[in-house]
């Protein structure tokens, strides 16, 4: 995929969850563009739809309506939804994900966890090796440790390293500091900022932490499934 100009173009994204006959709207006609190398944070109260939006933008979910163009390629439109396998193919070549929980495999060492994506897929042109990435995140001395021997901040850095190993174009971080204290949160924020500035990585950050959100180039505020007017810059 060619992420030369716009990394992401979403138009009229709507998401409705169905519970029996009841319809619960989560996102209402959201349109936005995210430029290549941009750092965008998504904020808003719980239930505002920020995670739902980022999941759709990150090809973790299909929208009920709307279209998504990723690096110039149409991913889905109103009439065309993607299968799980097709979503997986896009996810593994474009995105890297980090979440609130670190989801490190407890029986694998730090290095094995970071190299785990290669067990399933190795992206052409992914030039950095896991050791190099761990080194750049200050974890060179922790490579042979098990996740249980690390602090929360270290575990999240390992999760970041795992997300970076296949050289993604876009890094999606959903509440990456939700389980960390303020000092560790600050550290993770700085790592994301550095990856954005130095590596040119597009970063989509969902957070409740306003200090962290301020590190982004642009903040999108959501409320009741809509982007708040004037809250995106």
């Amino acid at each position, binding site marked *: 995929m060619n992420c030369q100009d716009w990394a992401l173009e979403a138009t009229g994204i709507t998401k409705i969850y169905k519970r029996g006959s009841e319809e619960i709207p989560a996102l209402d006609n959201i349109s936005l563009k995210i430029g290549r190398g941009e750092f965008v944070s998504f904020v808003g109260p719980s239930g505002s739809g920020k995670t739902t939006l980022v999941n759709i933008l990150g090809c*973790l979910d299909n929208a009920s309506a709307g279209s998504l163009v990723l690096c110039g390629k149409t991913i889905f439109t109103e009439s065309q939804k993607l299968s799980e396998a097709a979503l*997986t193919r896009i996810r593994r070549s474009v995105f890297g*994900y980090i979440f609130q929980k670190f989801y490190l*495999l407890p*029986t*694998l060492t730090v290095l094995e966890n970071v*190299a785990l994506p290669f*067990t399933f*897929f190795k992206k052409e042109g992914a030039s950095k090796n896991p050791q190099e990435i761990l080194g750049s995140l200050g974890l060179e001395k922790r490579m042979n440790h098990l996740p249980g021997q690390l602090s929360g901040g270290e575990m999240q850095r390992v999760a970041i390293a795992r997300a970076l190993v296949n050289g993604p174009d876009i890094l999606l971080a959903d509440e990456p500091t939700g389980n960390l204290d303020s000092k560790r949160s600050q550290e993770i924020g700085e790592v994301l900022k550095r990856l954005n500035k130095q590596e040119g990585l597009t970063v989509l950050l969902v957070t409740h932490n306003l200090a962290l959100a301020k590190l982004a180039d642009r903040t999108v505020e959501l409320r009741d499934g809509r982007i708040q007017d004037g809250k995106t810059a």
Partner: protein
Amino acid sequence: MKIYQVAYKNLSSKKVRSGLTLLGIALSAWVLVSLFGFNRGYEKALNRDIDNMGFQVLVTAKGCPYEAATLMLKGGTGLRYMNESIVADVLKHPEVEKTTPMLMAAIFDPNKGESGGISAFLGVDPATYPQMKSYLKFQQGTWFSDPQAFEAVVGYEAAELEQREVGDKMLIPEKNIELTVVGVLSRTGTQDDGTIFVPLRTVQKVFEQEGKLTAIGVKIKKEANINLVEQKLYDLPDVQVVSLAQVKETIMSLISTAKMMVFSIALIAILIAMLGVVNTILMSVFERFQEIGIIKSIGAMPWDVFKLIWVETIILCLLGGGLGIGFSFALSKITEALIRSLLPYTPTGSLVVISGGLGLLTIAMVLGIGIVSGLYPAWRAARVRPLESIRSEGE
């Protein structure tokens, strides 16, 4: 990292659970190998016993056919007698090559073991018996010096048990008659090892059964039809004819029920082990719901996840199967003793014959079970959507 390494590490994270499942599979594999081994070994051992009889047909006094079969193979108790004159009647048939008369005598010996036991003596005809049992070799000494001598030839195990050597004296309990040991047989692997042979006339005299026999071993000419001869011998009064084929059939029918029962138990054990595997893997899939979701989000296709879980099942089954086969080799003597205690009659020699080929066959079967057992948990895991696991974090 290879997929099997990830699978192995996943399994090793739940050591107790994986260990117990592995043990269940190992026990099933053990039962399976032992049963297959027994199936082969029993018939082989029975055939060997029968081949070593030296005669193809046994004529006994009329009675229970099972008793006759036991008498033929083991010596037996609950003795019935027939007149010696039947030997001549048997020999009248042109198909009969030769005969050997026998008289089994048993007596309670208060000095045997801790609380006494039965001492059995087999009276044999020195003129015909050694010819018919030409495979009997002596460790010490030789056959009797005289058809009426007070002498004994002792089988290998009987000699070991009673610490007998050539020249020793043996007392026939109650009768106060001494026999001199003139020969000790080498090991044959048959019932002869536990037998004390005495000249027929001596047994008849000592046990006051002159002119009586318990059995006549009959060797049929090679070209003759054994079934036809059997029918003819049946016409003799008050005798029954037991052929080796009949004996084999009788024994096999006796054990077939026991075999069927053991096979059913094995089948149930395998089913339980299989359910255990499905349960273990399924539980680990449910527990690792989020982990599987994240594996999919880092690039694993549904087939990759399917393979990962499937490989875990196969690893469990292969390790369990290997362990079970190890058990069956290491504990074959115990298995054999267990089977001997369960079955009504067991031939001498090795009952459970386990070979490398059998081990491979069992591994293949256990692998098959693993492949089938892993299908459902692997399919469930492959269907996990990354979003489902991520959503559980809440917004």
